[in-house]
């Protein structure tokens, strides 16, 4: 099986400044909340939306004398993620303290992995349309603790702090600066989210902040990036700024576009870009400096004395690798080769892991192409109309497959099938039963069709004369017969019989 389809590299985004053309260079840090029941170093729950400070253990609140004990499943999830990104797994990793002061960080430091991350170099193939994709290198993934949440709008003078999220496991997935435009950056996050959801290592819920990205943006002149690629020397690239905490694909694109233009204006004016952390304001569509973060950048990292190094065994890693599910690129390639789907349709069906599983169950009836058409056009269209997604889909894949089977066997026409689908979708009834009970079965019995044709001819002698003079009018007879049979007659059979009976 192909790992992924062959692809071409997209052209980097080029922005015309007032004086010359510029290109973008983007690197991303994706923070993905690990899907687990308990936190990284405590037995408190990770559930979203609990009462404030109720999912907090004493160790999360940094009470004196409390010690962290690592959740082995969180380690497994990080390893699984690394394997899913074809990355090197480090059997030896270690935890460090990243020190900074903030009200939602009771320890006064975040336990992270600066010097020895658990996952090393990997890659992601970012799809940019059929046959076009960008290979983005992953530099590392490390495990770390999330911080708490501050609420600023409940009181004019105070901020309120909830520690429920404090200590939840995060994977920070760091890319190389291989992303070359705002659309690629958004597509990278889409692809990363898709892979994480396939792996089951992060639910990818961006609204709840379970997946968020820091975006590093710099600009350079055409040709500079290629020189960087040859030498891996960052001196060829411009100074970067980091836009923090983006949790929307649309805002990521808008923020990058704004930030690139801001940097270009500075450079063309003879100025210098200052390396700093910035925040995107979607209301004003601009980025602004987070000066408060600058001083805090002195994190005074040191190895965490509460935790021994994390040593894992190759056998364990191999077992996790053996349990990996089929990933998006492989699934898409298989849908193309096995079901004969277009790359576009295969991409639509594999975009979401649940939808892909649903489709595969429907396709078990044996006609993958027909199943794909029905799932994409009828089902996805209907779900969209109801503002639902596949997880709350009211029609089971078995019933959907039954409809496909009924079409294939000639029991119902494609047109009637849409009615059957609507009834099955709204009522939950089985399609075969619907066809039977509602008498929707296509009439292929020529005797019955002939009788209906005879009746229409007998009742409409004037039309018969006209049709004999002008054969184009036979369509009227076909329509009458279809109406008389409640649309159940096989249209092809009706056509033939009408033509024969009229002597055309």
């Amino acid at each position: 099986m192909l790992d992924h389809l062959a692809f071409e590299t997209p052209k980097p985004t080029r922005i015309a400044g007032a004086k010359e053309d510029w290109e973008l260079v983007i690197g991303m840090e994706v923070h993905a909340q690990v899907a687990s029941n308990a936190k990284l170093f405590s037995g408190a729950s990770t559930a979203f939306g609990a009462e404030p400070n109720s999912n907090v253990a004493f160790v999360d609140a940094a009470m004196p004398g409390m010690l962290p004990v690592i959740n082995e499943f969180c380690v497994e999830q990080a390893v699984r993620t690394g394997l899913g990104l074809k990355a090197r797994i480090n059997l030896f990793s270690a935890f460090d303290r990243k020190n900074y002061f903030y009200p939602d960080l009771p320890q006064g430091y975040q336990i992270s992995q600066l010097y020895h991350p658990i996952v090393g170099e990997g890659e992601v193939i970012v799809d940019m349309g059929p046959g076009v994709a960008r290979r983005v290198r992953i530099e590392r993934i490390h495990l770390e603790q999330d911080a708490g949440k501050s609420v600023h709008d409940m009181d004019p003078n105070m901020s309120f702090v909830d520690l429920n999220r404090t200590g939840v496991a995060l994977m920070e997935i760091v890319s190389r600066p291989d992303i070359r435009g705002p659309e690629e950056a958004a597509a990278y996050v889409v692809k990363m989210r898709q892979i994480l959801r396939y792996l089951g290592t992060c639910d990818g819920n961006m609204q709840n902040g379970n997946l968020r990205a820091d975006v590093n943006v710099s600009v350079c002149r055409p040709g500079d990036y290629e020189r960087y690629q040859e030498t891996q020397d960052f001196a060829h690239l411009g100074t970067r700024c980091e836009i923090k905490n983006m949790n929307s694909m649309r805002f990521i694109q808008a923020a990058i576009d704004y930030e690139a233009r801001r940097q270009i204006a500075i450079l063309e004016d003879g100025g210098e870009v200052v390396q700093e952390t910035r925040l995107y304001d979607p209301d004003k569509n601009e980025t602004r400096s987070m000066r408060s973060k600058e001083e805090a950048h002195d994190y005074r990292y040191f190895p965490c004395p509460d935790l021994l190094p994390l040593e894992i065994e190759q056998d364990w890693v191999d077992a996790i690798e053996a349990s990996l599910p089929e990933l998006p690129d492989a699934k898409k390639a298989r849908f193309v080769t096995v079901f004969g789907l277009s790359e576009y349709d295969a991409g639509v069906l594999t975009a979401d892991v649940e939808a892909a599983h649903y489709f595969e169950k429907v396709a078990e009836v044996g006609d993958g192409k027909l199943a794909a058409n029905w799932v994409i056009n009828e089902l996805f269209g209907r779900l969209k109309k109801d503002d639902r997604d596949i997880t709350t889909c009211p029609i089971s894949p078995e019933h959907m497959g039954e409809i496909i089977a009924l079409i294939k066997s000639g029991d119902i026409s494609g047109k009637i099938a849409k009615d059957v689908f609507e009834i099955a979708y709204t009522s939950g009834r089985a399609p075969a039963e619907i066809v039977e009970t509602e008498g929707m079965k296509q009439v292929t019995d020529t005797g019955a069709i002939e009788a209906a044709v005879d009746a229409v001819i007998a009742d409409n002698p004037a039309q018969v004369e006209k049709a004999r003079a002008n054969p184009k009018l036979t369509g009227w007879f076909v329509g009458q017969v279809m109406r008389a049979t409640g649309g159940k007659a096989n249209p092809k059979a009706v056509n033939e019989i009408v033509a024969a009976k009229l002597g055309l």
Partner: protein
Amino acid sequence: MSIDIETARKVAHLARIKVEEDRLPALAGEFNTILGFIEQLNEVNIDGVEPMTSVTPMRLKRRVDEVTDGGYPEKILKNAPDAREGFFAVPKVVE
């Protein structure tokens, strides 16, 4: 490495520990004594010696992924100088 008064002031600020101006020279002095003590370690030849992370060979203790803790917000908030509606209440911090 030597800690001057400026560095002592910065370290105190990063840790949000209030140190009066007249206490800074003494603090910088103490830092230097500690660092000097640590410096002695640099005299030891450690070529080919693996870093030791524990005095006895131990494997990092793991826990299983089960919810076994939490559910006592009143205890968590008990020592808070100010708490409202289940939250810690702190002076306003806005970016």
